[in-house]
């Protein structure tokens, strides 16, 4: 017998990650070569793409070349925080690693 939740999770892990083209966002708070990995959060009405997660420390949106999944580690260069992506009630959020 299979646990449907387990098989669903396994399917997500096996599914290849979506790849994203990162364009310039006008974010200028880090050296030029890193700028496309970040953007400003636009407040109510803004939403996160599957390759994005919001830094809980400085509220900047961190962008990855590939779809993010729970367990990934990301770095917020504007505030220099190390973060881990976790699944919280079906939503991906970043937690600070001290």
């Amino acid at each position, binding site marked *: 017998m299979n646990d449907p939740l387990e098989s669903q999770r396994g399917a997500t892990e096996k599914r290849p990650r979506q790849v994203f083209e990162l364009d310039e966002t006008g974010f*200028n*708070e*880090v*050296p*030029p070569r890193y700028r496309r990995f970040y953007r400003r959060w636009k*407040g*109510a009405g803004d939403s996160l793409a599957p390759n994005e997660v919001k830094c*809980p*420390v*400085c509220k*900047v949106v961190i962008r990855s070349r590939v779809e993010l999944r729970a367990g990934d580690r990301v770095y*917020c*260069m*504007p*505030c*220099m*925080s*190390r973060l881990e992506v976790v699944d919280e009630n079906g939503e991906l959020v970043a937690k*600070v690693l*001290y």
Partner: protein
Amino acid sequence: MADFLSNYSIQRWLESCPQGYLEDTVYGHGPDDHEPESMLDNDLLRESEIRSTVQLIAGERCALAASSGLINSAPDQASKAFLATQTLDEGRHVEIFTQRLYDLGIKPQDLETTITTYLNPHLAKFAEVLLEKVDKKDFVAGVVGQNIVLEGMAFSVFEMLQASHAETNPKFAHTLSGTIADERRHVGFGENRIGELIRRYPERKADVERMQRDMSKHMLATFHVAFSGSAAANEEAKRQMDSGARPKTQAVYQGVDLSSASTEEMEKVLASTVLGEFKTRLARIGLEYQSPL
């Protein structure tokens, strides 16, 4: 850890800040930007801007004294380097907000008397609590007070001011965007460095939490005096908008339209945002938020 601490380098700061978002700015804004005539020609609005700018200068003078004072008590070279960059950031903030007072018509020889006249006494007490910890070379309490409480408050205040000035005063909004970028680094250092130190020295928690409670109490009193004192200017700004003397704008902060909100509503949204942020940030680093009420 060694690699992580190397991010607090002067080189990284140079590439991000002076060679990044501050490039081509003069006192933090575009070289051709000016304060709006509709505000400069109105005594009530100009005085209100002078009053709020004085509070920014006082807060930044406190941050300058605290960040420079903490350098010698920092336990490692990377933290000393970061605090050196923060000291220059805070010195720059003092300078750009002082320049704004001059742009608002204050003469350099009247600077100190203007600050003394308009300084909110509760903000002075807020600064005293922090600087007492810095004077005692208490690094953990000093960084929590400076980089989490003071900078956390500044982060939200700057965001609110930027939202309210974005359309009516692009010069000041541009100045604020640079200070907000600086604050990201400062709060990041506070959380990341202290998050690790609090785990190492849990016996420091009670004292640090008491300091946060005292600073929060003075902060709320500062907000109350500031907003209740600006009710007449707020009404005048609305009147100018209704009469067409200044463009009708929407300035939304945390879901509240500041261009139509009362000063009580503004005080409430700012206080709840800042305290909510304190609570979340302190919990992340293992401290329990202490209500000042």
